[in-house]
């Protein structure tokens, strides 16, 4: 048993550092995008269209990752795009988590009619096809950052609610909540002091996973032109535009794709790493 634990700990280290490092770098890029960007992400220069990245011979100095068909700097657009991506990830992820986890915790620990109501709500909710649902929502709300966030929260809270409910139920079936009751603790206090900390690692893992999903959903909606206005640089928008010229200028689509991939991967790995770190038995 002991060796199994130490192995988990050893693997958790670099995973946590690498994913955390990438996300920190991304956050800094988003905050200081205006200082870091070599060019205005919106500035077009048709004479400099489809310039390749720096290591190709015909590259234009100063445009490290090349330019798109309108002559806009790819690097600058990726840096500015991280603003939208991270804003959506943080706000939508957190809101989804708060709503879903609260409902799941209440349903799983209190059981009874609360559980009946929440469970039925989840069942009904999950019968809607999520992509259609989100496109419909944005069509009704109108495109924009807030609409995207609302769409993600509305669709994804069930993910938290389901998992947290099951976990709270499992914890509630143990003897330590009963022991707290014998000691005279109230139900609500037992839920918050005893149950919640034991469900927290699961919630954290889900939260980071959800942030990754939010980045993808935002990219998908940008891809189908339903995100924020098409002028502001977003990764999804860049991928969508780059698709047209993929044979002439592969870098326009490849660099935002890599960034997107690394970001989503980092979010999920960060969650797994934190989960292990939080577990007192593994620690």
């Amino acid at each position, binding site marked *: 048993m002991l060796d199994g634990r130490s192995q988990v700990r050893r693997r958790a280290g670099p995973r946590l550092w690498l994913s955390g490092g990438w996300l920190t770098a991304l956050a800094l890029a988003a905050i200081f995008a205006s200082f870091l960007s070599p060019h205005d992400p919106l500035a077009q220069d048709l004479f400099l269209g489809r310039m390749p990245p720096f290591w190709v011979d015909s590259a234009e100095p100063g445009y490290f990752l090349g330019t798109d068909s309108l002559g806009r700097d790819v690097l600058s657009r990726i840096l500015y795009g991280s603003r939208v991506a991270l804003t959506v990830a943080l706000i939508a992820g957190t809101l989804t988590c708060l709503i879903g986890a609260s409902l799941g915790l209440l349903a799983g620990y209190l059981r009874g009619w609360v559980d009946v109501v929440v469970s039925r709500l989840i069942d009904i909710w999950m019968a809607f096809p999520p992509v259609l649902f989100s496109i419909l929502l944005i069509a009704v709300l109108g495109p924009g950052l807030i609409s995207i966030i609302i769409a993600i929260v509305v669709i994804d809270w069930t993910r938290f609610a389901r998992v947290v409910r099951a976990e709270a139920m499992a914890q509630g079936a143990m*003897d330590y909540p009963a022991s707290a009751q*014998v*000691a*005279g*603790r109230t139900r609500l206090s037992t839920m918050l002091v005893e149950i919640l*900390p034991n469900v927290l690692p699961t919630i954290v893992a889900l939260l980071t996973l959800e942030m990754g999903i939010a980045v993808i959903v935002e990219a998908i909606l940008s891809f189908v032109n339903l995100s924020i206005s098409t002028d502001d640089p977003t990764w999804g928008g860049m991928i969508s535009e780059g698709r047209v010229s993929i044979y002439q200028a592969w870098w326009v689509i490849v660099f935002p794709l890599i960034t997107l991939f690394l970001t989503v991967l980092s979010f999920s790995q960060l969650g797994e790493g934190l989960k292990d770190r939080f577990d*007192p*038995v593994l620690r």
Partner: protein
Amino acid sequence: MADLYEVENLHLSLPDMTRKPLFGAAPRIEILKGLSFNIPEGEILGIVGGSGSGKSTLGRALVRLLEPTSGAVRFDGDDVTHLSEQALRPMRRRFQMIFQDPMSSMNPRHRVGRIISAPLRLHGVENAREAAREALDHVGLPRSFETRYPHELSGGQRQRVGIARAIALRPDFILADEIVSGLDVSSQAQVLALLERLVRELGLTLAFISHDLSVIRRLCTRIVVLHHGEIVENEPTAELFDNPRAGYTRELLDAIPLPDPDEPWF
């Protein structure tokens, strides 16, 4: 001596979720079918039965983790049968419980010190930390254990922490639910001897639930035998072992394999 617990015609039924129809309430299974007995102050009562006999349910009804369907449970003269959780709270410090599985009954994220002192803090005991340390002294564990997590302890040590938590509030009554069934024989005896000493030193009344008559012969002064939710025998320990009256009690005794290859058993 006065009776600490009076149990009268106690019935308890629970919903059977495995047979719950899609709509409407689940059918209820009657687990306790009209039990009546008393626990005099200072007694160590053994509650014995097989799985499904209702012994754990009875225990949980005594400390009001479960609410009886009908009948009465009186603790020190007060009717606690249907008291609300809120009304029970001030009384809870007087009846405590030790659980079967100490691992499951302790929050894995809390250290031993916090586990033992939590009930003290909830009841507003001043200097809960010092009281928790004294409880550790009582159960023969070093005070340094207060910074350990439950998973860092052996099974026997964990169960001692469970006992320390139960006695920390200086209750009048403790319910011990199968507390040695998960332990090796070497630590079983230590936990039982500890419990016996504490009952004497602290003047406790104890109900000890077990499926094993061998374990409780020495410890208990009186034994209640449960079978299918009914009391089939309620006798002083010596009387029960020397002259078991109920067929089920005899069956239980016959089923125990004594460590003696010459005794015909099958």
